[in-house]
């Protein structure tokens, strides 16, 4: 277990070339407040990392910095070796990083099917020129995208809500759609910001299961979560934050038995 954050080195399993996501001494300052201070962490392939800590620890700010919604004041973020520190969110998406938001962000005036379809087609499939000119190539691509949407809906057992608008779904369903939407991009990294908020208990279990399935299929996940049972159940490692700094990185069990972590939570 390391306390205080490791230096960024290409550790991890010998099979891969390096961490999927490398965060190196990232500081986020806005409005005169330092929300994140010199945070470093690594995300390797096929792992779920839980980002935990008391309120105001800077977890959402760090996720915002990784997702591109909040500018990084200092430090670097590398996605598969590529420097994305200054990249806008849509460019990070094309490199394989996708996130969900605390406030579930489905496209409420689009149907579930459209929510997933627009993600499946992405920016390349939604270009103005191809939408105007069209032709058989475009039709084929749209058909393929629609097929993949149906596959995903079936996989998640959500085919029967395909034609409901985002606004017509329950909180848990919307969260599932949001996650599925990210998966349509076949991302390498998925950032989940408090996905269980406002979700009914049986759907919490469902989403937990989906997270593990997603990890096994090759996607790395960072999940911000308050409910420690969830963290214990699905996270391979946890990163503990307090007052803007990374206080510990270890397995859940190790972290919970650490004096430093207890202090951070209850200080």
């Amino acid at each position, binding site marked *: 277990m390391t306390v205080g954050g490791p230096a960024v080195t290409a550790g991890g399993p010998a099979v891969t070339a390096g961490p999927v996501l490398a965060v190196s001494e990232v500081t986020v300052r806005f409005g005169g407040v330092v929300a994140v201070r010199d945070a470093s962490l690594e995300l390797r392939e096929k792992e779920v990392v839980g980002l935990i800590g008391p309120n105001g620890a800077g977890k959402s700010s760090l996720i915002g910095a990784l997702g591109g919604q909040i500018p990084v004041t200092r430090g670097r973020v590398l996605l598969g070796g590529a420097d994305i520190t200054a990249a806008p*969110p*849509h460019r990070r998406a094309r490199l394989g990083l996708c996130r969900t938001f605390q406030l579930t*962000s489905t496209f409420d005036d689009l149907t579930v099917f*459209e929510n997933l379809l*627009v*993600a499946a087609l992405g*920016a390349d499939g939604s270009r103005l020129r191809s939408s*105007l000119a069209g032709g058989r190539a475009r039709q084929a691509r749209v058909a393929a995208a629609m097929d993949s949407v149906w596959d995903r809906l079936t996989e998640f057992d959500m085919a029967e809500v395909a034609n409901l*608008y985002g606004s017509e779904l329950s909180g848990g369903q919307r969260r599932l759609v949001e996650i599925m939407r990210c998966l349509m991009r076949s991302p390498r990294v998925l950032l989940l910001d408090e996905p269980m908020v406002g979700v009914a208990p049986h759907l919490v279990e469902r989403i937990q299961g989906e997270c593990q399935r997603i990890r096994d299929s090759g996607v790395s996940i960072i999940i911000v979560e308050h409910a420690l049972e969830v963290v214990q159940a699905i996270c391979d490692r946890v990163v503990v934050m307090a007052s803007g700094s990374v206080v510990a990185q270890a397995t859940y069990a190790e972290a919970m038995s650490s004096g430093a972590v207890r202090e951070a939570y209850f200080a």
Partner: protein
Amino acid sequence: MSFYISTLLVYFFVDALLAWALNMQFGWGGIPNFALIMFQAAGAYAAAVVSLGPDTGAGAFQRYVFGSSLPFPLPLVVATLAGGLLALIVGSFSLRRIRRDYQAAILLIVSLIVTGLVTNVVGLVNGSNGLTGVPRPLSGVLSRLTYDGYQWAYAAWTAVIAAAVYLLVARLGSSPWGRALRAVRDNEDAAATIGLNPVSLRLQAFVIGGMICGLSGGLLAEFLASWSPAAWGYAETFAVFTAIILGGVGNTWGVVLGTLLVQVIFLQVPTFLPQVGYTGLIDALQWVLIGSLWLVCLAIRPRGLIPARRPVVSREARR
């Protein structure tokens, strides 16, 4: 009577173009374009100044730029491009991420600024007096037609243009691009995280809408043979908003219905009725009625008469 109807038809098609443009920008793109009418004016002025001959310098009857005497259909092309160019300029600073109410206020202010500039820089497009004597397209070639006949020919011409624009708009609406635009409207952050570029999508919608508005303006200026600031006060934009809200925001046919009800029946027909009260009373009251109609729509049926349709899909249907 025939004159009235052919005139109403031209207005209807010209206003339908505006409604489609606003529907794309606001209905699909979520851009509250309170400056819409300015883009129509850009096209109208552009068509006017390139189809008129050169002005006769200072002290002339009317002063304006260009004066290129371009023949049909070039002025319309220029009008379309003018609308698009103005949209590109305005869009480049007003389409960034911003609170929608502030964005609406900015666009309204820009339209007021432009009105102020146009009225005061007289050499540009003859200030508040506006331009007259704009040559009617193909009037030489079609000189054998009666005045009435020419009106109907023009109505047919605008119908053809409207049909073409309809095909364009309908295609874009149901296309992946249209869907991506609506996604950006619904949630910009979520759209970005799945790879869409919100600013560029909005700008594309804004410019295409601007081009359609410009085309609309060119058609109208050539029909009226004149154009002045009186034709594009800030309130005109709200007639279009009312039309699309009443008809159905987001629905390509809904906004046509709204245009028919608001722009044609509501606004135009009374002007052909005998005057009641003092001159101009009907005009001023029309805006009171538009405002009231707008409130009523927002209160009881904000989705409009023909709301945007739910795109239903089923796996079986595709096989």
